[in-house]
């Protein structure tokens, strides 16, 4: 029996664009989650940690990050095997030349394709030495002769993935072809198991240990894999390691009090300090709901690690014209009507958006004048 944790795509030092002040926190959390993996492996008494590429976002990340990762892994009691991926390929000047990798005998950076024979298994590493290649990284792997559990470590695109470029292509039946009991692969950030022709899962993307962006499914996990013996069916368990929640709330506003309900929904979200929320509204914009929108924005920006409110797709409610009637006859009312028409019938989305915003401005000034 061999028990190991498979993880990949930590993307330490990655860019977190569009998150404002939360960017650095998002980056820091990824490093904290590595610590969590080590803790988890210790708790589960795991003896082997396999990391299949893209530990770092780039070979030119800050060297202090490399040291932190190395030192965190050094605290794992079992053996650690790392194969470089396409983000951190084994090139001159890579992160793998950092001295931290020489400081711990149980942390191994696999730099060539020679099999590593351990007590209960044989590892077949496929380290990447450049960023792009159309070559199958497993092309020369053949584990058919071994009597021990054969585990492959690779990084690339499994053929058939949507929108995947022919970059380090990995056949769907790569594990079977190479005679592997399990092929641990990295590159895609969502957990993705692949069944062989015999219906058995012998190949899987573990996914990233911490979600990297909005809309990324089944991420923030590592895989605990158990294989009883050579040829046995791998037992795969997904363990949660991610600390951050990335929520996207797409809502359509039909009436003025819909926004109040959304505010309540937001307030109910637990642990908002580790939560990134993106709200995209469409539907009708009631000028009187301007205050509610402001409140919503305030909740987003003050409570959550990151919050973003988009009202670009909202259009002024057609029946919401009573406030215009309240404007004095003449220049102002005529202007308001002109802009309102633009908000409905503008030639493009930008024109309509600007007109809607202008109406909001006029509404605000009208309210102020009434005070």
């Amino acid at each position, binding site marked *: 029996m061999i028990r190991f944790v498979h993880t990949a795509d930590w993307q330490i030092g990655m860019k977190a664009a569009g998150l404002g002040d939360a960017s650095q926190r998002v980056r820091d959390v990824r490093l904290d989650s590595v610590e969590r993996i080590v803790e988890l492996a210790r708790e589960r008494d795991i003896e082997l940690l396999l990391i299949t590429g893209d530990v770092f976002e780039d070979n*030119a990340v800050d060297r202090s990050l490399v040291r932190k990762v190395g030192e965190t892994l050094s605290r794992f009691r079992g053996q650690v095997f790392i194969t470089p991926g396409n983000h951190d390929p084994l090139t001159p000047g890579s992160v793998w030349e950092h001295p931290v990798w020489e400081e711990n005998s149980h942390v191994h950076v696999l730099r060539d394709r020679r099999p590593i024979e351990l007590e209960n298994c044989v590892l077949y590493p496929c380290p990447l030495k450049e960023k792009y290649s159309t070559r199958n990284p497993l092309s020369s792997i053949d584990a058919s002769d071994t009597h021990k559990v054969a585990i492959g470590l690779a990084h690339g695109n499994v053929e058939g993935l949507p929108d995947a470029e022919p970059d380090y292509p990995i056949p769907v039946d790569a594990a079977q072809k190479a005679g592997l009991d399990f092929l641990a692969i990295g590159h895609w950030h969502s957990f993705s198991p692949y069944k062989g022709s015999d219906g058995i899962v012998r190949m899987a993307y573990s996914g990233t240990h911490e979600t990297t962006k909005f809309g990324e499914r089944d991420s923030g996990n590592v895989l605990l894999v158990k294989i009883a013996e050579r040829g046995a069916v791998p037992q795969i368990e997904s363990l949660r390691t991610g600390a951050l929640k990335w929520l996207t709330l797409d809502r359509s506003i039909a009436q003025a009090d819909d926004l109040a309900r959304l505010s309540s929904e937001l307030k109910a979200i637990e642990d908002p300090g580790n939560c990134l929320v993106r709200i995209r509204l469409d539907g009708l914009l009631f000028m009187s709901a301007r205050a509610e929108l402001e409140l919503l924005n305030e909740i987003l920006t003050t409570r959550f690690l990151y919050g973003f409110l988009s009202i670009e797709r909202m259009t002024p409610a057609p029946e919401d014209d009573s406030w215009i009637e309240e404007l004095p006859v003449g220049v102002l009312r005529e202007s308001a009507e002109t802009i309102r028409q633009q908000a409905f019938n503008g030639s493009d989305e930008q024109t309509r958006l600007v007109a809607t915003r202008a109406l909001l401005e006029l509404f605000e000034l009208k309210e102020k004048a009434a005070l």
Partner: protein
Amino acid sequence: MILKRIAVTNWRSLLGAVELGPFSDGLNVIHAPNGTGKSSLFEAMRRGLFDVHHVKGNEIESVRPWGRDLTPSVVIEFAEGSETYRVEKTFLSGASSKLSRLEDGKFQPIADSRNADTKIREILAAEAPGRGLSKQEHWGLAQVLWAPQGELAIDKISGSANERLRAALGIQMSGESGGQIEEQIEARFLEYFTSKGGYKKGKFAAPIVNLQEREVEIRSQLLELRQKHQAFEEAAHSVDDARHRRLQARREADATRETVDEMRASVERFDKLKSEQSNKRETESLAKKRYDDFNNSFLQIKTLREQIASNEKTAAILQDSEAGLEKETKSARERLDKKRSERESARNKRSSISEAQKAIDRARAYLDQQALVDAHNKRINKLDAIQKELEVFKQKRTRCVAPESKVLKKLRNLAAKRDAAKAALSASQIHLSISPENSIAVEDLTDSSKHSVGPEETASFSGDALVEIHVNGFGAIRASGPEGSAEKHRKTLEEALGEIEKLCQPFGTDDLERLQTLRDEADAIERSIEALEERMDTLLDRESIETLKQEHAEAKARIAEIEKQYGDWKKEAPVLSKLQKDFESLSLKINDTIAESEGAYEQAQISLSASEKNLNEGQAELKVQQAGLDTAKKRIEELLDGGLSDEAREKAISDALMSWQAAKAAADQAEASLKEIPGDPHRDLKKLEKQRTALEQTEASARDAEKTAEGQLQSLSAEGTYSKLIAAEEELVELENRIAQESIRMDALKLLHGTVSECRSRVIASVSAPVERSASRMLSRVVGPRLGELKLTGEFVPEAITPELSTDPVALSNLSGGELEQLFLIARLALADVLAKDQRQLVVLDDVLNATDSGRLARLLSLLEEVSDRLQVIILTCHPERYRGLEQATFVKLGI
């Protein structure tokens, strides 16, 4: 406002007090010649109404009459609404302000000082100026109603005046709250935008501007970081490349090293073969030499034998010819001796030629000396004659005693001095003359001399200081005079006389004329002597007469000498031409003889030389033949020294030839083996070693390059360029998002502001329409339909016309000067008409319509008469006759 009365004191050209009024509520024409204060009057009214009394500065100072320390002041009475006011204002020193109101028939003060200034502006809806004097925009409605001289055009109407116009037209732009909102829109717009619609920059810049500036900065940083990150990746590639190059160089160096080793083995084999080939060639060479020696010896013996036979034969022939040559030589030598003797004989005849030449020379000398003697004879005879004449003159000169010119000059000076002294003496004396009627006896008492003087005679008596005479029968007469001066003159006279006497003594006379004649005679003699001496000098030609005579004697002696040798010449002088002819004939004959003998001698000499040469050559040839014979005999003795027979020699030659051919075949074999090795292995080895060294150097260079690239890479990787890059990229995305958001907000504000402005403009445009229509009608009445409609801006400022024949508006700058002033006057009247709806208003026109022709002026005057029903019009002009058509107008002449 309606003007009632105005009084101005000490204002520019208006000295003292000038008061006008009361004015008519209709048309008033104030006229006066140029420079008499019409415009000053109008200015005083404006300053009095719109300027604060305590205003300072050069502008207000300039209203004080020139060169006078007077205080300008103005009093204006006007009606506004139902009230009548009086303003009394004094400027500069003693500045004051007072506003009174007509109450119960009397003006009662209602404000003074600054309060009065403020109150007046309130009544007239004027605006407070800043520093200095007020400008048109501060005058409230007056900026439309009043046209100062040269300022009839309307460029701008202030906001308050505009509001009044709109109010008069009954237009309400917005309600109170609407106005507030519009102000808020304007304020918010101006918070971010300039009045021209651009984003505000600088200290109060719109946030989007700061964001965009930061975006530019961050993009610049990003570019640098990307370049750095790219440099990192390129450095990684460089290291990789350097490693490949080093490995490749090492592989190539290793391969070359193997080739070098193989080539070294090849070189060793080559050297060995070459040594063998050299030894065999040497053996071949020795064998060949042996064969050549035998063969040469045999051939030499044969040749020498033939040579000896030939030499012996030739020597016998030469010995025979030698005897004949010796005989021939002897004969030639004898011929030469004979010819030499003949040549000497001929040469000896040359002395005859010399003698003949000498006779010619002597004859020429003889004739020359004779000619010289003749010439000497002539000169000596002439000289003797001149000498005799000269002697005669010299004797004459000795007899002639005459003073020298210098003495004569001195005598003339002394005579003049003497005469002057005489005159001075006479002048300094007392003279007494007596001319008696009868004879009288007179005694000079001064010297006691006595004189008798008859009738008709005059006796004179002189004395230095006193003349005293006694006339018999009459008595003594004394005449006296000044003393002292006569003695001095007398002394001078005596000195002159003494000197003259001394100088004239040698000549026996002191007559200056005689003395001059003597001097002239002496001069004539001296000139004759000089002439003769000059002739002698000419004849002698710088010689002395003794020298001449000596030369004469010497020439005669030479003639005698020649005559001794050639006695015939004494009787008959020689003829040079004959002598020369004889000489030439003799000379030709002798020279021909000499040339002939010398030719014969030379011929004989050549003949002898040829014979001697032939003899010598024959003897030398014989010697050569004999020497060759001796050498050949000696050599053949040496060659035959071995004592071998000719047959034995031929066999030895054959043996040597066989040995040589065997050695040659062995050497050729060795050479063929050597040729099997291509090229020069030494050279190839050298090249390969060079190649190996170069490859080793390439490997070393590649290693160095790799280390350098590694160093650079290490340095770049330590920087963590990616982490910096993404931080910048994140900031950029954040900025882009914020700019997008801000941009929407700014666009929304701009849209709101723009839409409100457009709406307002449309409303304003509709407001000005009634004024445009009114003005256009008036314009059409005055200038006809040509100019069409007058267009005003939203602020009621004329901006264009729309002629009937044109669809597009035409700018006012296209109108003539006359039309422009008519148009602006009409615009002002149209606006005034609007303002007069509620109450009568004052229109002031200062010296306008100067460029308007009489036809249009007449129509304008009709127009003025029409509007005077609603307006008070005051026209200031220096041409009152132009306004005489205004029948209802009150004409006021300024200063009367």
